[in-house]
């Protein structure tokens, strides 16, 4: 067997910090061959980035590393400075997790690329610029010449990721490492970006190491996957097998935590990853594992072949599972949940929100004519791409931004008509759970204080407040010892529970969730989703659940609205919208949603990806520029929501679309 491009052997990394040590990696072994795409998956803190950094010799200062990271036979850990500089970029190059943050803000992206080209490909200035232009074109940047002179902050997230990829490939590396390249990107873009890596492996013969916590999205492009847990490799093998029929309980837990557009229920695994104070001497997953035995807690399971499986499929478990991953059917809908007959607790009529630009004229219309109703006991899902106005809608509901036009009524009272104390009273009727749980807790207030905040506004005595706070903590399964802690002492999942407790404290009529799980890890997300599902079941309360991830909405919304550029493009019962999308945009969203299963079952369509230049839409349908079915009338006529069966959609061509699709996928 000739040398692999990359072969990591028994790599352990201990990071020493004043007063503590972190065993970030413990005996990791993996390899990447030329032309191969290897996925590295696992929970946050599992050590994925540490693996990436060790490959380019960028372990944090104060680390102790043992084992070997062989790149084309040479050990990266023991390279001298010169060799390391040659290896970096040219041997292996990383695409960083947060492309916008990883591009130097004070240098044009063109210069950043030519820096790489001149360093590694020995091009002269002029040649480099030409090459850079081509490189940009290759990664799918439109008008590349113009973009060469752009600064990173002028780029959209997708474009920045493309630039990052071009920088990494510009170094002409043998191995391309992508650390979470699609986190924070829209579903539509994610596909496209991942395709680039597959392409790099297929056409240029590079090895690719694709790091992600999002199993579903990388499932399609990887040849093999490696699953990391607590700094150890728990399972590794061909992608289709590992993801289709995982053998390690952790892999299985991971997979079941992921919501899917096909509507299967999420199964949460309790507990959290252990703190990595020292290299584990037992199975690190044992405390959370349903199958754990005494052996699991006393001994570290050796890496072994998956019994009976052909190919390169290994795992580290005493009790490998061989059965099919149980596919629980969608949880039986509690009947009578649809509270259509009930009083609406929240009504929005033709609301417009305009963000004034800082200096006088103009402004940005973030919401244009949105109307909706939420009844008690009902959950309304809101989905849409980034920037479509989801958070703005949430703020509008909470009265944090004023409506330029239109009206918000909570429990029958118009928000805009109230002032001062009465407004504050009304505000407590709507409560929100924020996207960033830690950030939405005041760093200098204790958990108990945070939860008690709405109670304080209601004028409860300290004793009553303490009582209620403890009750809420119990309800959300928060240990009472947590109450005295400060936010930075909480994990993301705990913080989000605190936030939900706070939202519930004042017994509001409406709960608004703005992407409550998007900042959380997969398994934690599953836990929080369970909590939320429990909370929204309360018949006295209406809920609004906002997410860019269609799969999570599907889990517990009764009705769903789809937002696009501040407008509602489709609205209806969740099964109907997801099962039979009327609007081309909804269909496109569903089409690109990643799925481990079959995903969206109907005919798929894909939109022209980048949104940035099309936003300045004319008078017509805002989607016209990206829509495969748009005709001239679409470009000139404003679209209104019209009823189609159970749902309403803002597209005049809905009746024609099934014919236009003719059962086949459309790509523009």
């Amino acid at each position, binding site marked *: 067997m000739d040398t692999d491009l990359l072969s990591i052997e028994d790599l352990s990394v201990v990071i020493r910090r004043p007063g503590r040590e972190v065993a970030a990696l413990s005996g990791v072994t993996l390899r990447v061959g030329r032309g191969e795409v290897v996925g590295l998956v696992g929970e946050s803190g599992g050590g994925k980035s540490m693996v990436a950094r060790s490959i380019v010799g960028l372990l944090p200062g104060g680390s102790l590393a043992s084992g070997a990271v062989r790149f084309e036979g040479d050990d990266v850990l023991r390279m001298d400075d010169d060799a390391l500089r040659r290896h970096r*970029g040219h041997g292996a190059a*990383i695409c960083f997790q947060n492309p916008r943050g990883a591009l130097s803000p004070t240098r044009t992206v063109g210069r950043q690329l030519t820096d790489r080209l001149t360093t590694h490909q020995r091009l002269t200035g002029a040649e480099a610029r030409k090459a850079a232009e081509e490189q940009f074109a290759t990664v799918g940047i439109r008008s590349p010449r113009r973009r060469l002179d752009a600064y990173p902050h002028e780029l959209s997230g997708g474009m920045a990721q493309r630039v990052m990829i071009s920088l990494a490939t510009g170094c002409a590396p043998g191995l391309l490492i992508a650390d979470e390249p699609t986190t924070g990107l829209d579903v539509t873009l994610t596909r496209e970006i991942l395709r680039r890596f597959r392409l790099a492996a297929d056409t240029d013969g590079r090895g690719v190491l694709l790091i992600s916590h999002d199993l579903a999205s990388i499932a399609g492009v990887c040849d093999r996957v490696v699953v990391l847990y607590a700094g150890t490799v728990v399972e590794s093998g061909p992608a289709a097998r590992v993801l289709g029929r995982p053998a390690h309980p952790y892999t299985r837990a991971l997979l079941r935590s992921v919501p899917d557009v096909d509507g299967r229920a999420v199964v949460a695994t309790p507990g959290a990853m252990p703190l990595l104070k020292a290299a584990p001497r037992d199975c690190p997953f044992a405390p959370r594992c349903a199958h754990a035995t005494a052996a699991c807690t006393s001994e570290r399971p050796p890496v072994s072949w998956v019994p009976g499986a052909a190919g390169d499929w290994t795992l580290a478990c005493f009790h490998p599972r061989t059965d099919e991953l149980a596919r629980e059917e969608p949880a039986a809908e509690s009947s009578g949940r649809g509270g259509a007959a009930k009083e609406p607790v929240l009504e929005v009529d033709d609301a417009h929100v305009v963000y004034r630009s800082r200096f006088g004229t103009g402004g940005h219309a973030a919401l244009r004519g949105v109307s909706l109703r939420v009844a008690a006991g009902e959950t309304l899902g809101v989905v849409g791409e980034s920037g479509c106005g989801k958070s703005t809608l949430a703020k509008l509901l909470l009265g944090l931004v004023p409506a330029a036009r239109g009206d918000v009524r909570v429990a029958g009272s118009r928000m805009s008509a109230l002032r001062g104390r009465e407004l504050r009273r009304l505000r407590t009727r709507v409560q929100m759970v924020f996207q960033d749980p830690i950030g939405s807790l005041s760093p200098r207030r204790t958990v108990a204080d945070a939860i008690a905040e709405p109670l304080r506004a209601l004028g409860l005595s300290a004793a009553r407040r303490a009582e209620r706070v403890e009750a809420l903590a119990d309800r959300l399964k928060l240990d009472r010892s947590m109450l005295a802690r400060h936010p930075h002492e909480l994990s993301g999942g705990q913080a989000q529970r605190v936030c939900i407790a706070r939202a519930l404290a004042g017994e509001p009529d409406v709960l608004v969730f703005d992407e409550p799980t998007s900042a959380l890890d997969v398994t934690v997300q599953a836990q929080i989703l369970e909590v939320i599902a429990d909370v929204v079941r309360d018949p006295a309360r209406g809920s609004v659940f906002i997410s860019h991830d269609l799969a999570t909405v599907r889990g517990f919304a009764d009705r769903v609205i789809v937002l696009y550029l501040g407008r509602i493009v489709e609205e209806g019962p969740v099964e109907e919208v997801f099962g039979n999308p009327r609007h081309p945009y909804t269909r496109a969203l569903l089409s690109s949603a990643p799925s481990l299963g079959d995903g969206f079952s109907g005919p798929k369509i894909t939109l022209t990806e980048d949104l940035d230049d099309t936003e300045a839409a004319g008078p017509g349908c805002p989607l016209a520029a990206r829509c495969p079915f748009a005709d001239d009338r679409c470009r000139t006529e404003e679209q209104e929501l019209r009823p189609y069966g159970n749902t309403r959609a803002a597209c005049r061509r809905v009746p024609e679309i099934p014919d236009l699709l003719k059962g086949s996928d459309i790509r523009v």
Partner: protein
Amino acid sequence: MRIVRFLVRRLLQLVPVLLGVVVLTFLLVRVLPGDPIRTILGPNATPEDAAAARARYGLDQPIVHQFLDYLGGLVTGDLGTSIQSGTSVGAEIGLRVGPTFELVVLALAVALVVAVLLGVWSARHADRAGDHGVRLLALVGNSMPEFWLGLVLILVGYSVLGWFPAPSGRVDPDANLTPLTGADLLDAALTLNGPAFGSALAHLILPVATLSIVVVAPLLRSVRASALEVLHSEPYVAATAHGLSGRTLLRGYLLRATLARLPSLAALVFGTSIGSTVLVEYVFSWQGFGQWALRGLLYRDYPVVQASVLVIAFCYVVVFLVADVVQAVLDPRVQI
């Protein structure tokens, strides 16, 4: 053009600030105890003499009238006549501002260069002995009263070592310098007067050193902090991970990003130095703006006080404006 619009908008914003300064100073000098007229009359003057002198300077008018007169003068660029010297305040400022500016600008330039060089060096050697040493030295410099430091430097540099000219005057009078701007070094350069240039430079070294030593610490601290931040930032790590050479890293990825934060601090330091050169000027017999303003204040020379505060305020706001522009040039993210 964007920048022109920005400048116009900012300049318009200056108007209320400067107007505020004008009103406040005008009232303040008059609220202060002390009579500007008595000090020019000598002890034998009678009340009638004083009244006559007061009338000469329009100080007998109602205060609103005086203020309107003053504003009217300002609009036409007339800063009034000094009560103490009887000459036009504008002309005196012309003489005094040059030397002080020369001092402050050079001191700040030296301090900036030192701060950037040492700050970046310190950051790259963070937490080693050299880094600690540099920072401590800067702090010690920052912890000395400037007049005290100046005296010591004179004692050592002039009296003991004899390396520097006597601390009187700013340029050797025999060098026959033709004054143009009042900044002697600049004038010497403009008139190609070699001896005067040398002499002016020799006279400048100690006071510039004094001022720079005193102001370098905050600048250095800021440079070091932002350099450290850049060194630990993702873009820099990314560039390192892509194997760029040390020089490219330094020039393309470290320096500019580091400097982007410096202008506003530099402006602040500049602003405070203009106000506080008065001590350095005293010690080095510099006869610049600070001494002039202080004397005006002690003698309640109303027009001088008003003009000096206005000039300082004007410099202050203009320097901040310049800093904003420089920052925008350095940091493309800054919208102006």
